[in-house]
């Protein structure tokens, strides 16, 4: 029975996959000597592609002796017109044309790929070889600051959608020949170039091997974004926590490389991915190493408190109000009871109502264009907040709780981690409404157990807290002065730990 199933699946897969089988079956894989044959085959290959330009080049006698083929829009017109065509018209040989990168090939598959990649290909009559000029030039946007990860004092450039530019931006931070770049291709139709960047003498080769195997295993039409790639290769897909760091900032990416991590740059995506990641890396922000260390430590502690608040505060409120009111002092419980006296709902319903409203406002704020987005705040803050209390739908205390929670959740520097914590708030609230404080503690135990069990590319996710790595604590709850962080974080499992030798200059003298 399984045999039949397997056979059917094979048929389905072959139907679905083989995009170029009809052409490929008829013609062999190498070029013909005759130009007309090659052009005819090319026309078959790129059937229904009006953006394919075939520019015939005439000899002095008027006969066609060569043809330049490229995809309009994917190429840099300047370079084709001013360099290739002009030089060819002047009678220069194909490999003397003044273009940066030239290569020759006789493989149709390679040619097809190169044309689709934005290069231009010159076929010459009588030669079973084609010359490929690097003339890539697709629409690009300028380098701008990332809107998601902003920093006060850090660099104001963010990644763009072109891989080579992104790599260049990272290389500007680490101009070292130990910065290795490994190229892979993902996707059957998309053929997205994926590059792994790392420091050859620092990063752990086991992780690279694992990373490569996982990326090579991906078998899909195309990937659009780094997030898709991340979902394919992360360790535990059933976890709410992000296990790979996604960033849009070259300085963050470079600092991850220097800490011994691997960076994965995906073509066509302005986000890059860093691995291995740990829970506490998601709570650090770009500005932490850029502002004075006491202030950075303070904001970091604030962030941890905020994570706690945004995870537990509504749940604790529900638990205390509906189960364990003995814990609250009498004065406070009286005032809470007063504001709650007009509210007909049980606390869980009240909290859910407000939390979901806030979440909807947040989502609406993202989708709307910026000028309208601001009104969301006014509508949400004034209308929902004040009017809901006056209408007796929610209590004042609840508004305070929900607003505090929302603000606390904005402190999360990483969007994915913030989203995970926001999401986990709801099960916590449910547990609290069913079992009170015990429910919250049970939820917390489950959370701790999950965090401890998670791994990111063979390195423990809870590091440096569990397993305890005291040396790494220098950059966790507090951020000690940069000159005191002599070693790279151990949690990245690197093979060369020393990152600086000298302490502050004036200490030696």
């Amino acid at each position, binding site marked *: 029975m399984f045999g039949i199933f397997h056979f059917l699946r094979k048929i389905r897969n072959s139907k679905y996959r083989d995009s170029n089988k009809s052409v490929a079956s008829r013609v062999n894989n190498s070029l013909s000597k005759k130009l007309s044959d090659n052009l005819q085959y090319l026309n078959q290959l790129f059937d229904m592609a009006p953006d394919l330009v075939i520019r015939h080049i005439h000899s002095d006698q008027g006969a066609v002796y060569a043809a330049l083929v490229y995809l309009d829009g994917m190429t840099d017109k300047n370079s084709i017109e001013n360099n290739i065509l002009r030089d060819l018209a002047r009678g220069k040989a194909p490999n003397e044309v003044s273009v940066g990168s030239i290569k020759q090939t006789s493989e149709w598959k390679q040619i097809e790929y190169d044309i689709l990649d934005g290069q231009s290909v010159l076929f010459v009559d009588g030669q079973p070889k084609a010359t490929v000029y690097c003339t890539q030039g697709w629409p690009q946007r300028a380098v701008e600051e990332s809107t998601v990860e902003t920093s006060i004092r850090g660099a104001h450039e963010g990644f763009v959608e072109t891989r080579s530019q992104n790599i260049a931006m990272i290389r500007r931070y680490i101009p070292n020949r130990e910065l290795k770049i490994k190229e892979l291709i993902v996707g059957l139709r998309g053929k997205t170039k994926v590059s792994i960047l790392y420091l050859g003498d620092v990063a752990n080769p086991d992780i690279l091997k694992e990373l490569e195997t996982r990326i090579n295993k991906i078998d899909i039409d195309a990937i659009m974004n780094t997030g898709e790639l991340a979902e394919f290769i992360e360790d535990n897909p059933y976890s709410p926590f992000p296990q790979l760091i996604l960033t849009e900032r070259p300085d963050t990416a470079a600092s991850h490389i220097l800490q011994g991590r691997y960076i994965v740059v995906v073509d066509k995506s302005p986000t890059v991915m860093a691995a291995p990641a740990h829970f506490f890396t998601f709570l650090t922000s770009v500005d932490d190493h850029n502002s004075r260390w006491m202030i950075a430590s303070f904001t970091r502690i604030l962030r941890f408190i905020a994570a706690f608040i945004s995870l537990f505060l509504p749940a604790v409120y529900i638990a205390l109000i509906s*189960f*364990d009111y*003995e*814990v*609250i*002092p009498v004065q*406070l419980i009286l005032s809470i009871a007063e504001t709650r006296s007009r509210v007909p709902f049980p606390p869980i319903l009240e909290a859910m109502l407000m939390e979901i409203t806030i979440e909807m406002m947040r989502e609406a704020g993202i989708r709307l264009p910026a000028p309208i987005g601001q009104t969301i705040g006014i509508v949400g803050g004034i209308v929902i907040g004040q009017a809901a209390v006056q209408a007796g739908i929610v209590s004042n205390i609840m508004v305070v709780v929900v607003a505090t929670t929302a603000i606390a959740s904005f402190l999360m520097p990483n969007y994915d981690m913030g989203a995970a914590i926001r999401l986990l708030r709801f099960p916590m609230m449910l547990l609290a409404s069913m*079992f*009170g*404080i*015990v*429910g*919250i*503690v*049970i939820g*917390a*135990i*489950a959370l*701790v*157990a*999950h965090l*401890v*069990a998670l791994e990111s590319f*063979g390195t*423990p996710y*809870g590091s440096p*807290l*569990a*397993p*305890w790595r005291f040396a790494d604590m220098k950059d966790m709850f507090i951020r000690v002065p940069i000159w005191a962080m002599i070693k790279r974080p151990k949690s990245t499992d690197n093979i060369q730990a020393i990152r600086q030798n000298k302490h502050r200059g004036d200490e030696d003298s």
Partner: protein
Amino acid sequence: MKKDAKSGITFMQFIFIIHGSQLGTGIFSLPKDLAEHAGTDGWISLILGWSLSVIASIVIVLIFRKFPNDTLPELMIRLFGKIIGKVLIVPVIFYFAFFVWTILTSAMMFIKQWFLPMTPDFVVMLLLIAPGFLVARKSLRILGRYCELVFYIMMVMFFLFLFPIGDSHWIHLLPILKEGWFPVFQGVSSSVYSFLGFEIVFFIYPYLQKKQMAIRGVVIANTITLLYYLEVTLICFAFFSPDGITEYNQPVFNLLKIIDFDFLERIDMLFLAIYLFEVSTTWLPFTFGTLLSLGLLFGTKNTAPSASVLFLLIVVLVFFIHPSWNQNAEWMLFIGTAGIGFAYVFPVFLYLYVLVFNRLRRSESL
């Protein structure tokens, strides 16, 4: 079974697993138990109990020194042959499983009494077990990390107990040895129960990465436990009157009740809820032992199915039995007696046997 470096546990994790499995719900009634036998000299019994448990754990380590890659069931099979060895594992499995059961039921009853009197037993039990399942089906390494993290979380507890110091009367402790040594020795029995849990070394020793540190590890683990017990006992003795302490079933709670802040009252309730973390590190190592032995008995490495069966069994049993405090006390007594046999007496005999066994084997090979 291969214990590679990746599934191994660090020295710290070794300590915290042992410490975690020692410190359970017993701490709440420990001062009362000690006071009943030894009066305010109970803390001396505690130290005596500690030295006994340290000796026993060292003996266990000495046994395994000779067979560094074996856990207890594997050692049994090596020493007594496949069939007798497997038969001998069965009581061990029962002991460990029963330990899990006793801890869980007592934790369940604490929760029911203090927080959720109306919730059915089995629901509370499910609640307790559910997060444990996440850890129990994973490797020992995960359990080690978990115990480590929980230890750090629960360090707050140590300082919380110091709050009532201002209201205590240290004069209650004097005179030392007012009734001589005899009551103190009587108290040793109840303190020895409290140190039960170090027998987990039977299972985790082969996973320890630095085996030469093992003896240091067990001593440190027992000492940390002793510090907690000593702190609680001394403060309870000093806080309550020597006669009054035996009137409370769980004097530690009555002690915590008097701590209160302006913004929070009833610290004892919050404390008990958070103490569930500590409870989870008590029963999880024992679950690990049970699952490991079961796996060896049936020849599978995958612990997830046996974990599900074990947990389901516990929930179903709770559903039908409806444990009461008295029943639980009986079970405690039973597991305590069995534990003394298993953790204190058995290692000594096993050690002697191992010595003889090695002598015989050496002479055979000669």
